């Protein structure tokens, strides 16, 4: 294992995080990606763009989101203090809006008139439809037919916002297939279309760009925790599907070696059952969706179908920076089962009056486990990446309740 001096120095000029990341796409996309990289490199250093982004994040998204000491939950657990970063309080209800606001501004600066996006749980689709409506851009969202069925409310929200939601019926009919179709659309319509990728995966510069737009979560949380508690947290937890909320939360802390970073992947029905979506815990390095990273594939290299109660975590790959952090030993990645996530969902609802997204419930479950192991003055920071309204039907159905 190579010792990493500065985790903030990545990716390198080729978009690589060590052996991960890169640009593994069809030739047709190389030039559009080069154009995007050049545009983003210029904009991210442009004070006017940064000011524009900051204004949007403050007045449209509603930042900063608070950190909140969940006292009743902490007391109930009987261990360390659990603190929640409330990304669920953002406009549209999740961290996803941070990235879409950023990418939509990049799209506008590049003169693009059409936005495409892929979505699993629907949060990224809603966030994309939202920013497209605000900027007057046409928006097409690709979504697996299975996900459309289990996230009906978000599908309707996207349509209310003026987006076309295109059902994807190939493969497993979930997020990975939606991503394939979005890529195909982009290949075909590169001239006027901007592809807003929703997580820290895909070809360079997406893993870097999406991380940069979400890194505000960790930057704020670091300041807020220092201010409120006078110290850094002992450990941070965040859910990891593609990994955008987790990278957003982890990034500001990467060089604080004393802070443990723990990503909670979807262990579904249990890693041993094979019905899960834990790419880092159970996958191997491979190439999927434009980047080298950990993927879940069979002996023939075919990407396998994944399972999670949470549509947003149901993805067989993961952002390359997470693969890098895992190999470097800087972050740990553990599995949280569907049952554990649901238990955490209910516990948080009843002790704090907060309905967490099922994705975020994985992070809460992991925070609860870690808080139990730490002394009462310990500090566990969990990223509450999104609100659970969208999951109410899924939870009710799973528990045999007819709404």
């Amino acid at each position, binding site marked *: 294992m190579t010792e990493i001096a500065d985790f903030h120095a990545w990716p390198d000029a*080729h978009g690589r995080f060590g052996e991960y990341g*890169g*640009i*593994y*796409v*069809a*030739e*047709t*996309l*190389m*030039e*559009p990606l*080069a154009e995007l990289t050049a545009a983003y490199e210029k904009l991210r250093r442009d004070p006017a763009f940064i000011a524009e982004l900051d204004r949007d994040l403050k007045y449209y998204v509603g930042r900063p989101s608070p950190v909140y000491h969940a006292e009743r939950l902490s007391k109930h657990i009987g261990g360390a203090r659990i603190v929640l970063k409330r990304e669920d309080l953002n406009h549209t209800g999740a961290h996803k809006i941070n990235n879409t606001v950023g990418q939509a501004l990049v799209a506008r600066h590049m003169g693009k008139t059409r936005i495409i996006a892929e979505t699993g749980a629907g949060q990224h689709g809603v966030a994309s439809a939202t920013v497209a409506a605000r900027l007057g851009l046409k928006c097409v969202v690709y979504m697996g037919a299975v996900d459309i069925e289990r996230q009906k409310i978000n599908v309707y929200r996207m349509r209310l916002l003026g987006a076309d939601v295109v059902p994807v019926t*190939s*493969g497993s009919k979930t997020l*990975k*297939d939606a*991503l*394939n179709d979005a*890529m*195909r659309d982009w*290949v*075909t319509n*590169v*001239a006027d279309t901007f592809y807003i990728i929703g997580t820290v995966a895909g070809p360079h510069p997406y893993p870097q760009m999406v991380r940069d737009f979400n890194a505000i979560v960790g930057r704020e949380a670091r300041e807020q925790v220092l201010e409120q508690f006078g110290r850094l947290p002992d450990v941070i937890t965040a859910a990891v599907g593609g990994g955008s909320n987790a990278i957003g939360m982890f990034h500001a802390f990467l060089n604080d070696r004393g802070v443990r970073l723990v990503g909670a992947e979807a262990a579904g029905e249990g890693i041993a059952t094979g019905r899960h979506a834990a790419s880092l815990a159970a996958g*191997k*390095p*491979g*190439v*999927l*969706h*434009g980047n080298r990273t950990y*993927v879940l*594939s*069979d*002996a*023939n*290299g*075919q*990407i396998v179908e994944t399972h999670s109660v949470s549509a947003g975590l149901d993805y067989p790959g993961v952002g390359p920076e997470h693969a890098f952090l895992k190999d470097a030993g800087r972050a740990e990645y553990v599995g949280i089962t569907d049952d554990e996530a649901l238990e955490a969902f209910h516990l948080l609802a009843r002790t704090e009056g907060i309905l967490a997204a099922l994705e975020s419930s994985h992070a809460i479950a992991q925070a609860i486990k870690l808080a139990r192991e730490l002394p009462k003055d310990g500090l566990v920071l969990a990223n509450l990446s999104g609100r659970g309204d969208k999951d109410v039907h899924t939870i009710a159905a799973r528990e045999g309740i007819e709404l």
Partner: protein
Amino acid sequence: MSRIDRRFAALKSAGRTGLVPFVTAGDPSPDGMVDLLHGLVAAGADLIELGVPFSDPMADGPVIQHASERAIAKGVGLANVLAWVAAFRETDAETPIVLMGYLNPVEMYGYAAFAEDAVEAGVDGVLMVDCPLEEAHVLEPLRQAGLQQILLASPTTAEARLAGLCEAAAGFLYYVSFAGITGAAQLSTGDIAGRVADIRARSKAPVAVGFGVRDAASASAIGEFADAVVIGSALVDRLSGAVSAEDAVGRARDFLAPIRAALDARCIGVGSGT
């Protein structure tokens, strides 16, 4: 000289345009695959592109995607593909075979092991759709073993990259005729003729044109300015309903015959040439 280089040299000296059919390995039937490969040669194939099925073929259109899904459902993997090539080589030592696909199956096989086994089986080159020149370092074990990496150029390829591609091209350079997925859109040959002429003048390797070629007319139009014509989705679509190995071979023959004839009709030295 590699088998691919020999074949293109022969085409050039005969004044012929090469015909490169694409089929998905294991589709329509794993059992009939070797017969189908021979059938393609009998129908006039100068080089065969054999698609390695992949679950997430993000640059392919629905026709090839569904062919991949059918093959995967029948359990087809890289080991099968290599076994079919080896069986084909028992009686055909001349027709070059290029494996076309995506990196992850090779990654899981292991690059070094794959390189050794592919050369042993008689594979001549690989065209990895998701491996542009910038990431080609991962295929170094394949090149060292003697496999040629077929590179692609497209209408969106910028001038600086095109120079690099023309310089690095081995076997042949695959020009993607339009920005899109396989099997989509109508071809506008006028737009691409100039571009291909420019690339042919600069490339170390011959230029094959694919994407959107569907019949004798489009193949003939492309044949006016390309060294070879690649035809994939339309053929895969024609094969998809085959009820037996014999039927598949017959369909391939019926489909390719007019295309072969059209290509030969416009060539200088009509004849087998190969």
